[in-house]
């Protein structure tokens, strides 16, 4: 490969600045395809370092009610897997790397090799695969190596030391630490399980470790930024974008949230 499409450059830059990266998730197609892409670009313009482009799926078993509702809306509105490529291109053009987050059957259906080539061509940085474990990922590991794409696998508080090794050895880009057992959604406290998981993960890998599930404001982001390489925020963005009023006003609210979270990841500097 000639160009590294991945996120490691951005994460290294954030580390050099002595701060955590801010990673924001939105599903493509919510409230509609155009609106979702505008929102993703707005996030980049107001401090989000890496964007997670969610592909809407009919059976999102890792997601809580807010994201479930958003992807149902996106599917009802006719969002397709290929719309994700428009999003990754727009985000790349706005100056940030975009990781696609997808349940595995969508990738499998399109063909793993084909999807990987198309994602690379669309400027995508790689894939986050919430229901694909490395044990099942041989085809994707080969395709992502070939295309220079990141492979973000997840670890959880339940992960044993053996599983942490297995997962991190297969990972490229960063390790996604799911801070609490459960589905996506905002939580009032992120809890000590997150720190413990990050520490245990660091013990087995030099890869950056980013923490997700539950963060909704700058203060929580600051707390996590004290020990994580990146703070992942999903539901709070989706809820903000799904609020009442004109799309323009909701995009303004999204920018405010991004700015607050970007403040948080800097205040928590180690």
């Amino acid at each position, binding site marked *: 490969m000639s160009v590294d499409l991945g996120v490691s450059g951005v994460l290294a830059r954030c580390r050099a600045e002595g701060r955590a990266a801010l990673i924001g998730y939105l599903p493509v197609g919510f409230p509609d395809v155009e609106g979702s892409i505008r929102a993703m670009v707005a996030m980049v313009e107001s401090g989000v370092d890496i964007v997670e482009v969610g592909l809407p799926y009919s059976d999102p078993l890792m997601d809580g009610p807010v994201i479930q509702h958003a992807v*149902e809306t996106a599917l009802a509105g006719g969002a397709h897997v290929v719309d994700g490529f428009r999003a990754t291109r727009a985000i790349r053009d706005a100056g940030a790397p975009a990781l696609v987050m997808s349940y595995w059957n969508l990738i499998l259906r399109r063909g793993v090799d084909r999807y990987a080539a198309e994602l690379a061509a669309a400027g995508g940085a790689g894939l986050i695969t919430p229901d694909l*474990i490395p044990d099942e990922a041989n085809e994707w590991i080969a395709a992502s190596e070939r295309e220079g794409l990141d492979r973000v696998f997840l670890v959880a508080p339940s992960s044993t030391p053996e*599983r942490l090794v297995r997962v991190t050895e297969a990972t490229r880009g960063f390790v996604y630490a799911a801070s609490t057992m459960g589905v996506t959604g905002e939580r009032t406290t992120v809890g000590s399980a997150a720190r413990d998981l990050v520490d245990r993960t660091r013990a087995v890998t030099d890869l950056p470790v980013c923490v997700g599930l539950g963060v909704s404001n700058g203060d929580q982001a600051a707390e996590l930024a004290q020990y994580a390489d990146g703070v992942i925020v999903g539901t709070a963005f989706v809820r903000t974008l799904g609020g009442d009023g004109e799309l323009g006003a909701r995009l303004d609210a999204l920018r405010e949230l991004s700015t607050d979270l970007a403040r948080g990841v800097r205040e928590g500097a180690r």
Partner: protein
Amino acid sequence: MSAGRFGQFGGRYVPEALIPALEQLDEARLSAMQDPGFLAELEHLHRTYTGRPSIITEVPRFAAHAGNARVILKREDLNHTGSHKINNVIAQALLTKRMGKTRVIAETGAGQHGVATATAAALMGLECRVYMGKVDTERQALNVARMRMLGAEVVAVEHGSATLKDAINEALRDWVTNVERTHYLIGTVTGPHPFPEMVRDFHRIIGVEAREQVLELTGRLPDAVVACVGGGSNAMGIFHRFIEDEGVRLVGVEAGGEGLDGRHAARFATAVPGVLHGAMSYLMQDEDGQTVESHSVSAGLDYPSVGPEHSHLRDSGRAEYVYATDTEAMEAFALLCRTEGIIPAIESAHALAGAMVLGRELGPEATILVNLSGRGDKDMHTAAEWFGLVDDVVEDEMVPSGESDDPGAAGDGRTQL
């Protein structure tokens, strides 16, 4: 490829957070199956509680409509709670205790597996929550009431299509959140490894008993073994002991619904492999890989995917899969009622419909073993509607609008699996 594969099918397509629980379960079930104490306890419960061994019944008056082949029914309908489901549920409930967990959760389409799970939970003092699509709770009030009588909590799932697949999604969400003390008691031979293999092993007793019983009755093996296939647990249960008997045809009957031009659940006739609920198998999906909703008059067969071992048996040619439409199944349902005085579950009626076709093909020399996986009491409302046995005016009064927020508050007692 990881462990737990049947050819290219099966696997573990689940969040990493669940892997330790799946490994714990795999270890527990493997050691349990080698443990004489566990096996003795299970055998005792099956003998004194489930009602095993279940009998076989030869049905000559029915067989007159099946090419005069010799037709023998394996009577899983006579088990406690009315279907084969109890075989697996009792065993998994014992495993739950063995793992030191105190809570079980389950999905149910229209109640049969939920009722069986609630039953086993009551028997063993386990906390029990059953997830059920809201559409199903509204139509299956009687089974919701049965589960609640047995002490289970029933949760109506309103997301997605609000049917079985969404109930499974919600159960998986619960499991990942509460996995430390909770066992997900999956009701069929699908889901991530080790569920397909484990649930099959817990139902294998059906085929083990039936093979011996048919040999004793007829002096030889059957020419064909026929079972309906939704997720496929009753079929794997009766097939498995016969897999090495090369001369025995294994025939699975899927739900053809309105026919292949309409809505149906004939996965093997139309679908391609994909991943749903943790397993790679044949899957009804659109061009993007989004799950397509299935349809059948029988809720127990109304599922867009199928157990991975069936996909392997199909692709390897060891088993063959046909489908029966709603109409064909209901004709077979009525026929067994009228000729033999046995009211089958509508699911099982699909197997009977398949046997009628097969009997005509094989003729009077053939012996066909059919798994009568459940009884049809639960299907009386559907049958009454289908055959016009209920006066229209009364019918209108009986069927509520089904718009209540309380899953148990309204419904017409129409039940399926």
